[in-house]
């Protein structure tokens, strides 16, 4: 059967269904509020549907929807201008230590020790997202949940490929450090 013959709504839903779960989980990790998550998903999906005639079959539908949803989330964040208060940053002293830490063999030893990741709780890992900036969080989640490519992050966020790598590297570094400080607190 020719794909082009199906009604657009049917084609849109066929493409949407396999992505629904990932979109919702992604959105929940970007926001902390249930109602906003629902609003963002609803607005993004309807926006995508309204623009479906401009979607090209050869592009990745998943990447296209992640882009629309990310823009929706960022727009809601700007609207409520809460970015600053919803994020707290690692203090500067701790940040200075990070490059040195990364080089240290002790750090690798810790990460490879059986208890390091076993003892990290899901909720601690999710809470550690709060130490990331909005963009760092989005790139990390696009990678981890969206399974997207760097050029797709770059297109979604409208930032150069080089900065994508920088944001992602910082996101990973902050997550590692947050997990480690959770664990230090737990063992005190």
């Amino acid at each position, binding site marked *: 059967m020719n794909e082009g013959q199906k*009604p*657009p*709504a*049917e084609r*849109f*839903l066929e493409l*949407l*269904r396999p992505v*629904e*779960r*990932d979109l*919702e*989980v992604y959105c*929940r*990790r970007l926001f902390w509020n249930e109602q906003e998550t*629902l609003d963002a*998903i*609803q*607005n993004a*999906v*309807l*926006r995508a*549907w*309204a*623009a*479906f*005639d401009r979607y090209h079959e050869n592009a990745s539908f998943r990447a296209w929807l992640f882009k629309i949803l990310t823009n929706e989330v960022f727009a809601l964040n700007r609207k409520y201008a809460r970015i600053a208060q919803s994020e707290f940053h690692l203090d500067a002293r701790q940040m200075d230590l990070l490059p040195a830490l*990364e*080089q240290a*063999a002790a750090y*690798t030893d810790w*990460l*490879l020790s059986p208890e390091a*990741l076993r003892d*990290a709780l*899901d909720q601690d*890992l*999710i809470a550690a*997202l709060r130490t990331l900036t909005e963009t760092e969080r989005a790139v*990390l*989640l696009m*990678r*981890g*949940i969206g399974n997207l*490519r*760097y050029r797709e992050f770059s297109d979604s966020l409208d930032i150069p490929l080089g900065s994508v*790598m920088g944001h*992602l*590297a910082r996101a*990973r570094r902050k*997550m*590692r450090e947050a*997990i480690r400080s959770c664990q230090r607190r737990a063992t005190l």
Partner: protein
Amino acid sequence: MRCHEARNLIGPYLDSELDAKTSFEIEQHLETCADCARAFEAERALDTRLFAALGRGEKTAEIWQELEAQISSANLWSRLKPARRWKLALLGASSMVSAALLAMFILLGRRPLDLAVAVAKDHRAYLAGAMAPEFAGPVPDELARTFNDRLDVRAFSTRPSIADFRTEGARVCHLSGVPVAWILGRYQGIPVSLIVLKKAELVHFPSAKRRIESGEPVICSRAGLLQFAARVVGDQVVCAVAETSKSHLEALVASVRGPG
């Protein structure tokens, strides 16, 4: 390749974003450098653990079913022939048309119906045996005294007149803080919840309020496997929820006579 170069590329390497040549150079380095090999292994372990935790979660069926229903039914735009769409887009400066259509979808489109979602949650508790009727006859006086005019005692005597409906009992529930009469029963053997609240309390359920006020005689919505239907009877709103078809539930709600 030197150690620091390899370490700088850990992320892109794990994400399979490097070209074949660079990946090969990294792999060669890892074969000869135990420290870097361990560092790569550690990062991979962290990524696996992290992405598993961040990606865990199920989708909320209600949200997606509502959205899908909205898209399947409200496809005014897509019913137009492509050529006609093109003309329309040109006609109205395409961005304005899209903006207007989007606004239309959002305003007219059915948002997940707040009242249906709230009702479905408690009905699931009933189905799971986590919620039971508290009385079978008239409302106990001491309970009625707690209503403070927010709930009408007569709400508890609401019954559908349709055949095959049997009542098992009733209780008071709170939906988003709103006291409601909850009548538990069976229709054709299927568990049904009948929920009655004051019409004035609809202010707590704006999307249901909007649809009821738009003049639909019976409003329907799906919440997962559950069908929801509601209608205004006098100054009360009567809702029903059950795992049944839309037409069955519509008929059930339509058969409710005014209380008293």
